[in-house]
Every structure is written in C-alpha cells, then in structure tokens.
C-alpha cells in the first residue's frame, strides 16, 4: 500500500470534569442533531459535490462532511452466498452518540469491522471522519478509536505500560507519554491502578482501560462494539458515565449492544439493524413518532393509586399532563413514561421479523 501516512493528531489528555461530577442517573444530553429525523433508511444519495446530506449537513463529494462523522451508502458485505450487510445507509452526525441496535447476527460487528478499516466492503461507499476506510485506512486509523467486542489484554504488562505501548503504536513522542497516561487514567478512573498488572484488573477495569487505549491518539470517532457485555451493574453505570463524559468532550461515539436498556439513556441517535438490513435510523423518539408508535404513561396519584395512559407523541404527553393537573385537578405525584424506550421501539419495528 502506498498511501501517505497522515500526521497523527496530537493527543490531548482530557481535562474536563472528572466522571464523578455527573450523577449516574442524569441522562446525557447530546448536541442537537441537524435536520429532520429519519425513521426509515434514506433514499440512495450519491456523494456528489455540493450535495446535501439527508440530515442537512453539506458534503463535498467523498470529502469530509463536518456534519457527518460517519456515512455509508449502499454498503453491502457478502460472504459467498451469505449477505451480512445489505445496502446499508448510515448517517452518524458529528458529536452524536449513535447506537447500532440489532439481534445477534444482524451485522453490527461486520459494520464496525468495515468502519474500523479491518474489512473491505463488497460494494457501497463508506466515509469515516472524511476518509474512505478501504482506501485511506491509515488516515481513518488516525481519527478513530476502535474497541472490539472482546477484551484483549497482555500478560506481564502494567497498566501504564499498556497505554504507553499503544501511544508508541500511534507514534506519539515519548516525551508526551507521562501527561497523556495521567490524563487517560484520570478520565477512566484508574489512576490508582497505574502500576498494577493489566491481567489482574477486574473486567470492568479492563473495559475502562481498553476505552482509555482507544483514546491515546485523541480520535474524533469512537467505535465501541458491545462495550458493556459481561459487566456487572456498577461497572455498566461507570461505563455509561464515562461515555457521557466523552460525548461532552466532543467525541462522536458509535456503540453497539443487543441489550437495549444499556443504550437507552445515552444514545442521541439509533439505527436498528436486522439480518443485515437497516430498519430505522434517527433519534429514538422521532422514529417512534414517525412510525405512529405509542408509549405508556403511568400516573401515580396522591392516594397511591396508579393509572396508565397511552400517548403517541410529546405533544400528546404534554396535553395529558396539562389535562390531569389543570383540568381534572388530580393530585398527581408521579408522571412516568414506561416502556417508551428503545426496547419498545425495537419490538415495534422488528415485529414479525425477528427470528
């Protein structure tokens, strides 16, 4: 391969607030996505100069579209007769936390492998941080941090050495390593484990260390394949906080999981995949509304009794609250949306199609 090696970006040890500054229950608010929501795969849109992306961002041919961190167009991957991904059109807005949702075998890992420069697509176009992963792999590698679904850690290596090793793999000068490692360990809350052996860490700590590893070169886009699998509840909450922290640092995060509750609180956008095909894409609530989906509101009254209401949109939800409190003057003590999340969305969209 004769492609030019881009100068790797200078790592910037994260200096924003520590993870503990954000309460665990606070849902992470992402930056607003541009343009209208998309509930179904957008029509095929060629990457032509001067065009406008489906979500409103401008792009220039195959050049970088600042509004979109990742785009795929007609992405298809076949293994012989098996179609792993079929005509996939993804649009991941910059700064989004984008959840790729689907059952096992839906094509999530294959999609990630293509985005992470590991796998060639059979057909279609891909753009990650403005570069084509198939033909400009080195440029893409300098801009992404990829965490595969398996935890690969080395024996006989200390936490500090592990991060320094990957810093050297990204050609970060040795003089920058100490401050880089300090910043990363602080971010993932492993400062006290600096001299510990990597293989002695708990699974949650290894997961956070792996995440730190993906950040050594200060990438723009993080691609995380099933990062929460196998973690206990506490570790999951810590990971979720960490992802929120990364989002506030301006990273675009693409994350996959087949446990929808994990993605519920953090994703600003989702894409639902099944059998290699994209079923829906956009902010979860927008997809639900566009599909005419409903959500259930549970209202608890002063006497402890509960009532369930079904609404179809935010407007209906507001109207319901107003009606209960203002018009009916009911002593509402709790107004909770139940079953309105990704799980319901997923079930509605894949109804009858999930094996």
């Amino acid at each position, binding site marked *: 391969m004769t492609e030019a090696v881009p100068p790797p970006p200078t790592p910037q040890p994260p200096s924003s607030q520590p993870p503990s500054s954000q309460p665990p229950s606070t849902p992470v608010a992402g930056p607003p996505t541009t343009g209208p929501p998309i509930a179904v795969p957008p029509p095929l849109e060629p990457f032509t100069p001067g065009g406008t992306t489906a979500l409103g961002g401008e792009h220039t041919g195959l050049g970088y579209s600042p509004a979109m961190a990742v785009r795929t167009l007609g992405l298809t991957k076949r293994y012989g007769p098996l179609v792993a991904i079929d005509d996939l059109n993804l649009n991941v807005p910059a700064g989004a936390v984008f959840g790729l949702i689907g059952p096992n075998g839906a094509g999530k890992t294959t999609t990630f492998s293509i985005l992470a420069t590991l796998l060639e697509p059979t057909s279609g176009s891909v753009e990650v941080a403005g570069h084509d992963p*198939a033909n400009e792999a080195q440029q893409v590698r300098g801009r992404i941090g990829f965490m595969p679904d398996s935890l690969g850690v080395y024996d006989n290596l200390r936490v500090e050495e592990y991060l320094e090793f990957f810093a050297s*793999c990204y050609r970060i000068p040795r003089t920058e390593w100490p401050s880089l490692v300090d910043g990363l360990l602080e971010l993932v809350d492993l400062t006290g484990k600096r001299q510990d052996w990597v293989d002695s860490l708990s699974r949650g700590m290894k997961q956070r260390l792996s995440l730190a590893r993906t950040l050594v070169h200060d990438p723009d886009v993080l691609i995380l394949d099933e990062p929460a699998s196998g973690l206990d509840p506490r570790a999951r909450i810590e990971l979720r906080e960490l992802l929120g922290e990364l989002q506030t640092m301006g990273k675009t995060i693409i994350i996959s999981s087949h446990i929808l509750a994990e993605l519920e609180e953090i994703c600003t956008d989702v894409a639902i995949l099944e059998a290699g095909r994209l079923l829906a894409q956009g902010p979860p609530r927008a997809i639900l509304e566009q599909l005419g989906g409903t959500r259930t509101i549970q209202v608890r009254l002063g006497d402890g009794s509960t009532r369930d209401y079904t609404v179809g949109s935010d407007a209906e939800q507001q109207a319901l609250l107003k009606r209960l409190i203002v018009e009916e003057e009911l002593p509402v003590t709790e107004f909770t949306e139940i079953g309105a999340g990704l799980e319901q969305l997923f079930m509605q969209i894949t109804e009858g199609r999930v094996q």
Partner: protein
Amino acid sequence: MSPDTKTRSTKTRSTEFMINPVLDRELRVRMRTKRAPAILTIYLLVLSAIAFLTFQALSSILDDPFNEASALAVAQIGRGIFEWLLFFMTMLVFFLVPGTTAGVIAGERERQTLVPLQVTLLKPRSILLGKIGAATAFIALLIVAALPLLTMAFLIGGVTVWRILASVLTLLAVALIIAALSAAISTFTKRTPTAVVLSYGLVLVLLAGTMVFVGALAIMDEVTGSEGLADAGRVVLHLNPLLVVTDVAESRPNFNTSAISPFDPLKLLIDPDLDAFDPGGADAGSDRRVPFWSTSLLSLVVLASGALVVATRRLTTPAASDR
C-alpha cells in the same frame, strides 16, 4: 489545537527515533519472567558439560602411544569441542525457535489482541518484524552467551576465531530464517498449537525431508540403473539449514582420527566427492567455485523473504474476509 502546535508535534514525531513498539513490549514481557534467566543458566551449564565431556573423551588421543602428543593432536581436541558445542547449539535452534515463534500471531489472535494492534498506525510489516525480532532475541542471547565457551576451543587450538564468528553468525541467520518461516505459518492459523505443529513439521521437512529425498533418489538410481537422478535432486539440500551451518563450521571431514565430529558425515553429504579417509589425497573434493553455504543461505533467505511477504499480506487490513 493550533496549527503551530500541530506542526511542531508532527516534526517531533518524524525526527524522534522510536524502537519498534511491538519489539519493545515483547522484549520487556519476555525477559520479565523468571523463566528467561533460568533457561539461560541451565543452557550454559549444559554447554559447559558438553565441552567438558568432549574434552575428556578426546583427551584419549593424547594417551595413544601411536599418536604422540603433537600440536595436531591437541588441535583435534579444540576442533572437537567447538564442533560438538556448535552442533548442540544448532540443534537447540531447531528445537526452540519454532516453539517460541510459531505462536506470535496466532497467540495474538487467541488473546484477541491482534485487532487492537491492526487498527493503530503500525504497519503489518512492523508487527511481524517486531514479533520475529523479539522471539529470536532470546535465542540470539543464548547463542552469543556461548561465545566464551566456543573461544575456549580457539585457545586449545584447531579452530580459528574467524571460523567461530562465521559459524555463530550463520547460526543466527538460520535462527532468523526459521523464525520468519514459523511466524509466517502463524499468520495462517487461528490457534497456537496448530502453528507450533506445522512449524516443527516444516523444520523436520527441511532438516530430514531433504536428506531422505536425496537418499530415495540415490536408491532409485541403484534400482533402475539410472544415473544422475540423485545428483540432480541434491539441489534440495540447499534448503537444509543444518547443512549451511555444517559447510561453514567444517572445513574437511577426517575419519582417520578418533576425534570424529558430528558434522563429518553431513559434510560428505554436501560434497560426496570428498575422501574422508584420505583428506589430503588427490581426490580431495570437487572444485566448487561457489561455496555451498552461500547458495544455500541465499536459497533460505529467499524462501524466508517470500514467506514474510505472504505473511505481511495476510496481516494487511482491510481484508476481504475476517482473519
């Protein structure tokens, strides 16, 4: 980040000398275990024992009433010690290198650490060379650590410093060649045991297979009455790494003395025209303008380089399918 900062940073990166990261990490990890110094100690003890036993066995030359204690007789002892030590070290290379190298890539796959490496800015070639370098570094340490024992043979006499150095360098080259072949096999297997078995299999084919092949052709010559079949087939002996070391280490076999070296029969295999019972006679071997070791080493280097090219392609991503 300001443009100035980026420029400065890029400049720093391009001018700073950086050791291959994989080599750096692997050396650190491998040498950190207690096993490394233990193996080194046991190895040197065994080599010392071999040197001592060889000396004891060959000292009988001096007791032979028909073979007075001439400088020539003492030289036979020195040469014997050198050749037995070198033979043991060569066998050790064939025994250890496939075991330490065959798992380098397959092991990364098993530990699921290969993908995180492949998505960094490291080139596949760097991953492979770093791994081979680290795997052979310890073997190289073993070979170099034996130099004081080998030079003991020089002090006794019968072997020159240049022959010792040339032999050790050839052995190092052979270790690297076998490491490259084993590492290349490792890129094709998903599991380490498979890679280890295949690597030892390949070494066995190169060591014994080539000799058996020529032997079989010689028998066919005998049976069918044909001529030249074995001679033509002898070209495969160039791929035998043991014969390269033999050709460099052994100048001329001599079966007239009791100090028979392990390389003597192998030298005859390289050049059957040599008369081991009349080393100074008229039929003192064919007049080879190009020494066997040079063409043999070249053949092995070409083989190993080809294997590395294929292995590098195998590690290159994006790939058409999951590897």
